[in-house]
């Protein structure tokens, strides 16, 4: 190699170091940045899991919808809403329209004015008829930044529920075990019963982080209780073969895989020890 050539090589090296690499990293960062949940959610218990839905509200002259996930999860299984009714598991991902609710889909599956729950009629959701405009019923959901007294207060509702952990600060599993909550898994006219499949035994997932000295124990049995098979398979975890999906904590923090629930509604991801339970020798 001649001197001029090696000089050229050096120049390319310097250019790579000073300019090309940083630019490429920024470009890569831009591609990888995901609007789903790039910042870690920190919310007080009563707000954890809250979903603000604003696909069409503002355009229709209404306040965005504030959806209290804790109230619904206390009464219905995850499967019921996210499989049978078909809600997406990303806020704004369903694109709910008033007309769709009125036809009896999405919120309108229960909030139709005729569905009865615990001896009371569930209030009807949207109506596209003009006469209903300004109805105080609208504000039960369309309530962002409005002074609306919610019918169910978090503190009162959860007073008797066992406490524990982050998120809503409720031990939801324990609450069901003790019979304080009994999530409903069937809506007549919408759900169709299937014979339950036998849940696979608990298995271990090897932790890749050298700094965390515990493997993950995954329990299908615990998960199928509220999720059935269909919340997770095949959309979130397409493969049912262990080890064929190669995801990392970064993916999870990005709101994918376990992060679909364990970032926003189920116990949060910063409770490392709840999944990483098996000490590694």
């Amino acid at each position, binding site marked *: 190699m001649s001197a001029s050539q090696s000089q050229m090589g050096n120049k*390319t090296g310097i250019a790579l170091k000073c300019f090309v690499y940083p630019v490429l990293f920024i470009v890569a960062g831009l*591609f990888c940045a995901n609007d789903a949940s790039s910042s870690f959610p920190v919310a007080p218990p009563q707000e954890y899991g809250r979903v603000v839905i604003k696909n069409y509200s503002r355009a229709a002259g209404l306040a965005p919808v504030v959806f209290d996930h804790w109230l619904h999860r206390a009464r219905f299984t995850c499967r019921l809403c996210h499989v049978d009714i078909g809600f997406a598991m990303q806020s704004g991902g369903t694109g709910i329209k008033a007309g769709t609710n009125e036809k009896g889909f999405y919120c309108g599956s229960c909030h139709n004015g005729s569905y009865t729950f615990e001896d009371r009629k569930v209030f009807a959701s949207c109506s596209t008829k003009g006469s209903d405009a300004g109805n105080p019923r609208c504000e039960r959901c369309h309530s962002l930044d409005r002074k609306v007294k919610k019918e169910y207060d978090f503190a009162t509702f959860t007073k008797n529920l066992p406490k524990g952990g982050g998120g809503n600060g409720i031990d939801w599993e324990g609450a069901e075990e003790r019979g304080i909550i009994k999530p409903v898994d069937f809506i007549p006219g919408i759900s169709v019963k*299937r014979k339950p499949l036998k849940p696979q035994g608990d298995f271990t997932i090897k932790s890749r982080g050298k700094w965390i000295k515990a493997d993950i124990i995954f329990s299908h049995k615990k998960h199928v209780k509220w999720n059935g098979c269909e919340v997770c398979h095949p959309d979130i975890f397409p493969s049912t073969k262990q080890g064929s*999906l190669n995801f990392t904590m970064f993916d999870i923090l990005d709101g994918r895989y376990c992060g679909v629930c364990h970032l926003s509604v189920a116990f949060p991801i910063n409770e490392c020890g709840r999944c990483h339970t098996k000490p590694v020798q």
Partner: protein
Amino acid sequence: MKAFSFMIVFILVFSAMSLAQTGVKKKRPLPYEYGTVVINNYSSKAYMAPVVFNHWLHRANFTCRLCHVDIAFAMKAGTTGIRAADNMKGYYCGSCHNGKMQWQDRKVFEACSKEYDHKDMRRCERCHSLDKDVKREYDFSKFTEKFPKERFGNGIDWEKAEAEGYIKPIGFLPGISVKRPPLKIQKDFSLEPKVQGMPQIIFSHKKHIVWNGCELCHPEIFSGVKKGLTKYSMPEIFEGKYCGACHGLVAFPLLDCQRCHTKAVLEAPEQQPEQKEPPTHGFLNRFDGGNMPCPQLLLTAH
């Protein structure tokens, strides 16, 4: 420069991976949305709105085979590459939508045409309707009101709907279809799932050929008619291959595990079933002398 090109490849792969949103849960399409195909190969370039094709309406009236074999539509959105000129010549949509075909005492409206005036624009909009406020002639909820209901997909039990006489899908189009004597149907058989503990799959040729004949699935989707030739797994099906060509898009979706995984699990899965003479089934004997033409691992005569 090697490092540089490596970086480029790394970034491209990484960004592609991050853009492909796997591991998330999207909304389940509503019954009237399920199976809808948006076709935009050439529409936008011709200053037309993309076509919105209602699969539910057509599947209620015609067999799968008629459109996907006799007329030869692809089974993946946008891969047929339909042109206005093709339709005008009487291919694809123009096979029926030619302004002449009679269907239940009415003439089927004509698809694309070269000459048109402003009155015809409404006809264009019957198909070229994406993001347009077009009143459809057939309303899903009215059309399917009395149909037996099922879980997921269009929310219709199409099989039962035919059995109860609500739908009578047509499998023959004069001038296009040519009748062949039907082949004898192979019996139902079971497939062993790879995940231990999952119930076996019971596959029914009888149920599938009613609307599909042989030609919809063989040889393109399932090329192997000999055991072990076509190897596939659930992830491939989820990607839209094999069973996923229909189940997940237009037929009942893959979310409904128990509709295929129906057979009870054997008590002792470790025990290998004893080797028997390959079972002989129906018409396939003619091709391979009795070897069971199953694309999966284990097969038991059911």
